[in-house]
């Protein structure tokens, strides 16, 4: 009896192909596990070293150096970070929303493309270059370091993030809403500001939150724009050079006596950044589902 033309038995060749496929699957699983492991190691070691140094003084005191390196706290840096990021948000949020309205609602396609490209390119510029830019410009005009200068650099970093996030949610707003409003005789600008933007507000705010989390973690653009020294008191005057949590980490990390404090600052910053960005991403996903479905 002759062999049938098609055998139902797995041939060696097929078995080899399946083996390769399974091996590649294992590689993919391994890569994913590796990424999670690295995240876990970073988070756990920062938490392990930082959480121990946390106490009430860390958040309420500003005595940073001196006789007892383990005493005192970094209130001055927390206040400084809040002022720096707060002012940057006040600049970047309205500006970013306006740019996004222009791109998605009003602009002719070629202008929208130019603006969008400018935002993407700005987003790709190294943050240290943005710091240098603000420094050379402000030094020529103003002549001294200040938190305002740092905020300006952070605002340039936040602007494309806010604008692109806003643009994305504006595009999700169903055009039937706009058409209904226009059909009722409502003018274009009222439709935009009173119908389209309010229904995209949730998405705009979560996008801004992501940008805030990003700005709070920036160090490089602040290096020469605001103070690197240590303060003994918390200062909230934006015209003074202020400290930030990231600068504290950077100035403390190679002083052995202050490393505990650097870890503690890193832990506080990491918690803030991870929780805000995670919460914003969850909110954004829910918001997208609501508008999309």
């Amino acid at each position, binding site marked *: 009896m002759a062999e049938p033309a098609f055998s139902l038995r797995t041939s060696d060749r097929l078995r080899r192909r399946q083996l390769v*496929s399974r091996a590649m699957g294992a590689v993919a699983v391994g890569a994913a596990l590796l990424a999670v492991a690295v995240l876990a190691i970073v988070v756990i070691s920062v938490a392990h070293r930082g959480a121990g140094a946390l106490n009430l003084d860390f958040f309420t005191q500003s005595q940073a150096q001196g006789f007892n390196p383990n005493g005192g706290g970094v209130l001055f840096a927390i206040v400084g970070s809040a002022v720096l990021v707060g002012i940057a948000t006040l600049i970047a949020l309205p*500006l970013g929303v306006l740019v996004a309205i222009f791109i998605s609602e009003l602009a002719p396609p070629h202008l929208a493309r130019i603006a969008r490209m400018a935002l993407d390119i700005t987003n790709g*510029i190294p943050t240290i270059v943005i710091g*240098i830019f603000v420094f050379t410009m402000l030094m020529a005009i103003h002549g001294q370091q200040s938190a305002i200068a740092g905020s300006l650099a952070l605002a340039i970093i936040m602007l*494309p993030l806010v604008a692109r996030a806003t643009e994305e949610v504006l595009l999700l707003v169903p055009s039937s809403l706009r058409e209904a409003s226009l059909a009722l005789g409502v003018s274009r600008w009222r439709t935009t500001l009173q119908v389209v933007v309010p229904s995209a507000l949730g998405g705009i705010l979560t996008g801004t939150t992501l940008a805030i989390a990003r700005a709070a973690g920036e*160090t490089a653009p602040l290096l020469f724009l605001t103070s690197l020294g240590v303060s003994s008191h918390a200062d909230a005057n934006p015209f003074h050079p202020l400290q930030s949590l990231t600068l504290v980490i950077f100035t403390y990390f190679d002083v052995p006596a202050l490393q505990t404090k650097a870890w503690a600052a890193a832990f506080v910053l990491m918690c803030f950044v991870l929780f805000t960005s995670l919460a914003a991403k969850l909110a954004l996903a829910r918001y997208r589902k609501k508008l999309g479905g």
Partner: protein
Amino acid sequence: MKISHAHEDAALERTRGWLDRIGDPVLRAITFSAAALAVTILGLIAYELVSGSRLAFRSFGLGFITSQTWDTIHNQFGALSLIFGTAVTAVLATLIATPLAIAIALFLTELAPKHVRSLLGALVEMLAAIPSVILGLWGILILGPFVQNQLEPFLGSTLGFLPFFRGQHSPTGILTAVLILTIMIVPIVASVTRELLTTVPSELREGALALGATRWEMVRGVLLPAARPGILAAVALGFGRAVGEAMAVLMTIGGTIGIHLSLFGHSDTLAARIAGQYNGASTNLQTSSLVYLATILLVISLAVNIGAQFLIKPIDRRPRRQRIALDRAFEAQGLSAD
């Protein structure tokens, strides 16, 4: 008849009010100026950097790029060693990160069950959210000792016949910086690649599997080619991020001038040198040289970013072409794609 028309018009005029009449052009003007400002900032950045580096350009010219010295005492500056350090760290980090990131993206889109998918995706994105100064701190105080005491001795004893794995073991150096940069860019490349893979139409996958391809053959023959331009763009974005990273590299690379083959040795990059020296620059010429470095950095990152955007463009056409090719393959076998 005529009268009632005039009456209606007047009523309409009254309800619309002056605000409504000027509102449209005003909103258009305001938003246009905001967008123009965003474009202007980009131009201003380029202008400020070029004018800030004029002093150094007058002293060193284009020879700045090919000179290795960085001598603050004799006021001689050159970028070659820093360009070399930037290229080595960014290229190596990209080479390590790309296969890892693609593998992670494939796991997330093709293999993982649905609930694992969203959880793991969120975790990978969390890795991208960790501030670079924290990664630098972790890199020097935790990864550094591991590199010095375990990784470098191991590499030295197994691959020490290569010039790359020789030299003094130290917690800082090119190897530590490369590992930190890899950790920074893997999540970026992985999440963009994941987005791209989810846009590949599922008929492509099903078609390849129905033709008898194994899962890996489907990935290699259909999925990755369909997403290739986008993946290249994602890799370019990751590379750009590695080139521009200042803090984490400044804290881990050791900060010395010189070109050498050893990955264990110290080096420095454009961004790290600017971050490390700008505050302490003692002469105008040194400050201007640092701005010159920033200009070089800007040019590189612009080239990488614009290149990435042009890579993304053809992606819209690609799946369609793939689908047509697949249709033909089905027709040849007497099957219908529908």
